């Protein structure tokens, strides 16, 4: 089996490019992410973060270039990639009309979790995410934080090697955000899972990510640990300063709400 072993990176991105009409959303991005790394992607809305990770999740074919995720090529073996990754999209992916348990059951079946293990894995995953008591309530009645934890639990049932989280803490209060991050860190520490996380909150990216890439207009404009990115900006510099310093004016003016993001994605969808 030509699978990634711990000495090879979990994700290798080579010249990955995606064009929508006359907009180059991701422009020749190359990047390696190591096994067990928590990798943060930051950048203004419309910078190409979501497009990049949707290509890694094989939901969008690249215009050119390729990447390998968990040892499989996203262009040549998308189905194999999907077996080895977990993906939590920015939008709500749990079904509000199903209970937490039923949502988990759907994922377990789609990922081919053997019947004999299904119930036990679902129960323990829900317990680990603090959802044991609400397993049989409709997901529509969950709070934002509970939904995110349910979605993360759904994407972990098949024990993926790489977990991709697109803005997992968007719209959550600080307590709910901390709970989500606690679970993410636990997964990395206990199971050596690789994580790719996007966020607009510089503090959490700085606090939790091993390395960070700043993306602007489809290109990586800075890459390294938080300390490396801040080096040379003075002792009191924050990641916010790095962001403001490197992101060119026009795009960051559009920086904003969830609604903006949705509108951007709608526009990209129309282009596609």
């Amino acid at each position, binding site marked *: *089996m030509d699978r990634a072993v711990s000495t090879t990176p979990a994700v290798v991105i080579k010249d990955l490019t995606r064009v929508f009409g006359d907009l180059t959303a991701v422009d020749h991005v190359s990047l390696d992410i190591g096994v067990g790394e928590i990798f943060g992607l930051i950048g203004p809305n419309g910078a190409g973060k979501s497009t990049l990770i949707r290509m890694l*999740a*094989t*939901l*969008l074919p690249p215009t050119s270039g390729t990447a390998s995720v968990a040892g499989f090529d996203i262009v040549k073996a998308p*189905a*194999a990639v*999907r*077996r*080895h*990754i977990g*993906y939590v*999209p*920015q*939008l*709500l*992916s*749990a*079904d*509000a*009309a*199903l209970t937490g348990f*039923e949502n988990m*059951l*759907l*994922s377990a*079946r*789609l*990922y*081919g*979790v*053997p019947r004999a*293990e299904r119930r036990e894995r679902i129960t323990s995953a829900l317990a680990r995410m603090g959802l044991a008591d609400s397993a049989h309530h*409709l997901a529509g009645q969950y709070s934002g934080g509970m939904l995110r934890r349910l979605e993360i639990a*759904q*994407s972990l049932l*098949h*024990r993926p090697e790489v977990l991709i989280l697109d803005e997992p803490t968007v719209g959550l209060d600080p307590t709910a955000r901390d709970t989500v991050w606690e679970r993410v860190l636990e997964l990395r520490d206990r199971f050596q899972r690789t994580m790719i996380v996007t966020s607009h909150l510089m503090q959490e990216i700085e606090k939790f990510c091993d390395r960070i890439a700043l993306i602007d207009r489809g290109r990586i404009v800075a890459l390294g640990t938080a300390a490396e990115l801040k080096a040379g900006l003075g002792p009191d510099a924050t990641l916010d300063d790095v962001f403001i310093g490197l992101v060119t004016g026009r795009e960051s003016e559009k920086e904003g709400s969830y609604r903006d993001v949705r509108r951007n994605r709608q526009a*990209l*969808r*129309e282009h*596609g």
Partner: protein
Amino acid sequence: MSDATGRPFANTAERSLTDRAGEYLLQSWAVAAAEVQKLIHDPLELVTRAVQPVLWLMLFGEVMARVHGIAPGNLPYIDYLAAGILAQSALFVAIFYGIAAIWERDLGVLQRYLSSPAPRSALVLGKAVSAGVRALSQAVIVYALAILLGVGLSFNPLDMLGVAAVIVIGSALFSTLSLIIACIVKTRERFMGIGQVMTMPIFFASNAIYPVSLMPDWLKAAAHVNPLTYQVDALRSLMLKAATSEYGMAVDFAVLIATTAVLTAIAARMYPRLGY
């Protein structure tokens, strides 16, 4: 079923054909079962959907029954109509599937499906089967109504099984067609317009409420390439004691199954694009 690392189905090449076929069916069933669970949580939709067949049979049917010579032979018009209305309710259930797919895309649920390793055709098939299950609930209502109206129904278990099969296949066919249209138009607003424009021609250019022999030639040609015609033909001969199939059951089933297979193959290619 899992490799040394505890990961299920680690590598496609390692798995036997039976394993893969079993997994395919499980994945299709996962999608259909989720839809059935949603119906169990909120069955109100099934009740509201029952209004339309009631109106067609009790208003349209009762009036038109006074016009003689529509239905062939000695078949009472209300009997003739019952099979057509059953097909119609299944069609209306199925046509709603495209808009549901767009809705799932807008929510994000679609990405849950598409990021899973399930083959796209298994996802499409699962949705199609769930349309069939929904439509079967309509069959129960139409049958109850038909009994009340004194329609000469056949209660032969084989016939009834045949009716169920035709409804499931027909619903799968039209829900998949609806999904393809959703993948082309991509927004709910555009779909609503097209859904309306599409449903009525499919319904009227068929033998649902009048025989093809009464149609002008150009409409006859349309009816003969309309899968609903074959669905109604099969339903009518299975459902009623006194009716026989005009095209033959083999032709009816062949047209329905072949069309569904072709549409499923097309939809499987287009479904991921809905998420781009």
